[in-house]
């Protein structure tokens, strides 16, 4: 996404006369905003640090992978997950901001699921973390609903022609996670080994789980 980052670092509003500092114009503008909001007492710097640490390092697709692996090995959990994903995930200690109302959609040989947010960037934070740039960017948001097979091809995923594609546009506060099909040849694996096969993209629907061979 080099193109996006060019824009980020070299934004429309860039200032030709910025000081000799190493900081980009955006860094400077954001620092000014932060200073003012902190000094005025609206923002606690410790809260900023905690928020960034939480979403940079703690919350991520390893959470979702645990959910998927459990669903693969535990039919009762899977049934609970499909009926009330928010409650089922809470059993595993997973939930919170951006995942208050979870829905899990399960792939089958007949239907593959793909999640998008055409209007902004809705994404199931507690299970997947913050979304990648491509998920938030116009190419994915514009095309996932009109040509999902072409989009999947760009991710290297080619589905059987007779497998339908169901696209879930996240237009409200429900958040979707895809439950991929358990790969063949994983009968002997334990839950942790299964979780290691579950990629982030497999839970968005733009990928498939790794197979044990490819994972090795």
């Amino acid at each position, binding site marked *: 996404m080099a193109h996006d*980052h060019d824009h980020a670092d070299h934004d429309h509003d860039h200032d030709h006369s910025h000081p000799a500092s190493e900081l*980009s114009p955006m860094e400077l503008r954001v620092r000014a*905003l932060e200073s*003012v909001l902190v000094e005025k007492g609206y923002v606690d*710097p410790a809260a900023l640090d905690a928020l960034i640490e939480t979403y940079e390092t703690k919350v991520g697709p390893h959470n979702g992978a645990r959910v998927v692996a459990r669903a693969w090995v535990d039919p009762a959990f899977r049934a609970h997950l499909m009926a009330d994903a928010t409650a089922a995930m809470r059993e595993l200690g997973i939930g919170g901001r951006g995942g*208050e109302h979870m829905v899990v959609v399960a792939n089958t040989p007949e239907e593959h699921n793909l999640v998008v947010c055409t209007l902004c960037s809705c994404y199931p934070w507690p299970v997947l973390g913050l979304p990648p740039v491509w998920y938030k960017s116009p190419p994915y948001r514009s095309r996932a609903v009109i040509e999902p097979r072409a989009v999947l091809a760009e991710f290297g995923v080619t589905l059987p022609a007779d497998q339908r594609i169901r*696209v879930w546009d996240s237009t409200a*506060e429900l958040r979707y996670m895809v439950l991929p099909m358990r790969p063949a040849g994983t009968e002997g694996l334990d839950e942790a080994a299964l979780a290691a096969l579950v990629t982030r993209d497999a839970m968005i629907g733009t990928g498939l789980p790794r197979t044990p061979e490819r994972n090795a």
Partner: protein
Amino acid sequence: MNGGQDLGGMHGFGPVAPEADEPRFHAPWEKRVFGLAMAMGFTGTWNLDASRAAREALPPGEYLTSSYYAIWFKALARQVEAHGLATADELASGTVSTPALPVKRVLRGEAVARLFAGGFPSDRPVATPARFAPGERVRARRINPAGHTRLPRYVRGQVGTVEAVHGSFVFPDTNANLAGEAPQWLYTVRFAGRDLWGDAAEAGHAVSVNAFESYLDPVDPEPAA
């Protein structure tokens, strides 16, 4: 609003470009903007729907040429200023020159883990029963509000099938204007790709959206052909 954010079905943006081992943030300022947006949201001066509205209110050309966190930053600065929490001069200089306004809440560092792990649910009870039931055919209304809405243009006027009734939730169209949560029933409505996109639709393709009750009209009896 029919703004730069309503991207479903558009052409011309080029291929999707996944990035290997993508970091969570691509510049230090992106982290700060993320944290500031979360923390300021918690003050209760506005809400999540209002923040989305502020982002999509950027002129479409600017929206489409700004990076994701640049959009967040611009919207946040605009909200801060519009609500009188700081002046444009203060935001430009980084130096405080006017008194702070009172805010409802301040997010403290020690409370982050607990509050964010708990989340902020947006389901709300309503007194009336749901108007539609799974299996019913509905038509998305041809609304074109200048303000915030969550009914994308590509489904407006289209007929789909109710697949699920999810309970009742805060209605973004009013909440974004700070005009009340006015909760409504929320549905999943499934549309056939062919109905949305015509002959060009890929085979076996369907799209679902979550639609609030006031976005939908009944289709009765069965449409001709």
